[in-house]
């Protein structure tokens, strides 16, 4: 399995997560992304291994969010969003002509920076939305089961079990963000993308979400974009450092096990960023 990331020796403590199935492996090959004519992310290749947390760090505007949005074809939703290169999900290109973005997004879920619970729906319906809105009819029993399971996984069940019928907007910011995570895992994806999920939250809620990520990683592959280097160091197994190139497009500078990237970076620019010399 070390062959996923050639040229890198993964220390033993990084391999402790047992990979019993190899689902949810993303292999990014020569990925470039544009907004109209503006190149936002340039020629990125990396392998994201399954059942591990991969964090993406870097200064503002370096294309982190654009990159993560490419991973489940959300980039093309933005006005003028365009992608070149390919991303192999378990060996199949998600940008292949016959690949349906709707199907891809069910396998690769996403949680955004600002909590996006649907204000017109109850807590219950928010979690069930991914199921309800993709079918004509759902068994109530099944929905109840999925909602409870997802909320438990998102460590939110005890806090909301008595207000499942209240509006999703009535929850606190941290609870809403966990509600969004519950909603994402309710459709049982293989990979969960988190785009700065804690930047709008207080430290206590942030800690809860970090704990949550550590438990979720036993089942899911997690990719997280974060501004917070401590967070990346705390939670992630692998880390990628992005930077803006001279032409203002984002490039991948260094990618490797978190411990190595933070203690012994290979690139001078990574070291400068991590030690706080810029960015």
């Amino acid at each position, binding site marked *: 399995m070390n062959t996923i990331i050639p040229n890198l020796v993964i220390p033993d403590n990084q391999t402790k997560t047992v990979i019993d199935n190899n689902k949810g492996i993303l292999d990014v090959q020569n990925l470039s992304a544009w907004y109209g004519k503006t190149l936002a992310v340039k020629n990125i290749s990396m392998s994201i291994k399954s059942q591990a947390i991969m964090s993406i760090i870097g200064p503002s505007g370096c294309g982190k969010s654009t990159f993560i949005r490419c991973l489940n074809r959300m980039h093309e*939703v933005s006005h003028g969003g365009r992608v070149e290169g390919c991303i192999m999900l378990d060996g199949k290109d998600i940008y292949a002509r016959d690949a349906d973005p709707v199907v891809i997004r069910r396998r690769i879920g996403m949680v955004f920076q600002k909590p996006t619970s649907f204000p017109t729906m109850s807590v219950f319906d928010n979690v069930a939305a991914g199921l309800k809105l993709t079918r004509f009819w759902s068994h109530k029993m099944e929905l109840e089961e999925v909602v409870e399971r997802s909320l438990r996984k998102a460590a939110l069940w005890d806090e909301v079990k008595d207000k499942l019928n209240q509006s999703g907007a009535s929850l606190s910011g941290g609870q809403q963000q966990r509600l969004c995570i519950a909603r994402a895992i309710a459709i049982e994806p293989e990979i969960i993308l988190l785009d700065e999920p804690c930047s709008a939250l207080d430290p206590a809620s942030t800690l809860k979400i970090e704990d949550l990520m550590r438990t979720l990683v036993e089942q899911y592959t997690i990719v997280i974009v974060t501004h917070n280097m401590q967070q990346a160091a705390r939670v992630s197994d692998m880390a990628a450092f992005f930077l803006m190139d001279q032409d203002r497009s984002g490039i991948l500078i260094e990618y490797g096990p978190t411990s190595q990237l933070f203690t012994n970076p290979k690139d001078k620019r990574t070291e400068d960023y991590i030690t706080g010399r810029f960015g």
Partner: protein
Amino acid sequence: MKATNRGYTRRKWVNRLMLGLSSIAAGLAILILALILGYTIIHGLSYFNLNFLTQAAKPVGEAGGGMRNEIFGTLILVGLGSIIALPIGLLAGIFLSEYASPRVASVVRFMADILAGVPSIVVGVFVYAIVVRPMHSYSALSAGVALAMIMIPVIARTAEESLRLVPNSMREAALALGITRWRAVIGVIIPGAMTGIITGVMLAVARIAGETAPLLFTALGSQFGVQGLLKPIGALPLQIFRYAMSPYKSENQQAWAGAFLLVILVLGISILVRWVSNRKRI
């Protein structure tokens, strides 16, 4: 020094003058509304009674009589117009806000605004040519089509505006769940825009409830009550028009009562619109 002082005084007075003029203009606008309302209420209320609502029109010379048939006719026409215009207007609004590229959207939006500005008599003549003539009969149906044509751009534009107010993050959140665009629109975007959409539909209803011109060549009016959708039908504004022009005093009085009812109807819808749009803005 003195010159600047004089200039300042002049500017101050011009400012006061313009402020005064615009206040007067605003006051006039309100006064006109108050006069229309007051005049119709004073004249209409004295001839307005239960018979007016429950009885059919009677021949001149006979006492009593009302506009029951015409009230019923107006309800049918407004209903018909809404049934035709609602799906078309709503879908057009969804297209404009959710699917159209900015360029296509601006073209369609411009066309819709022109359609909304077409004089209603022109709509009436047009429907006469494409529905009444081929079917060889004035009919409730043709009047419904004419009213729908007036409603569609209003509904489409208000629906578009309210759909646009739903934050983009909601669309993205829904799409990221692997929901198709259409289901996201139905399940997430429209519920978020519901208040605005209902407001738009009610405004459109208020607009057509009092339309007379498009009914002249389509509904025509009827002395025999409601006979079916393919037959001529009476309507409140049409009957007001006829009775107001009539040389008979009793019919003039009935016209006042009809005008009163129409004004109350439209006023009621407007108040309802305000209530709906204020209700869910927490």
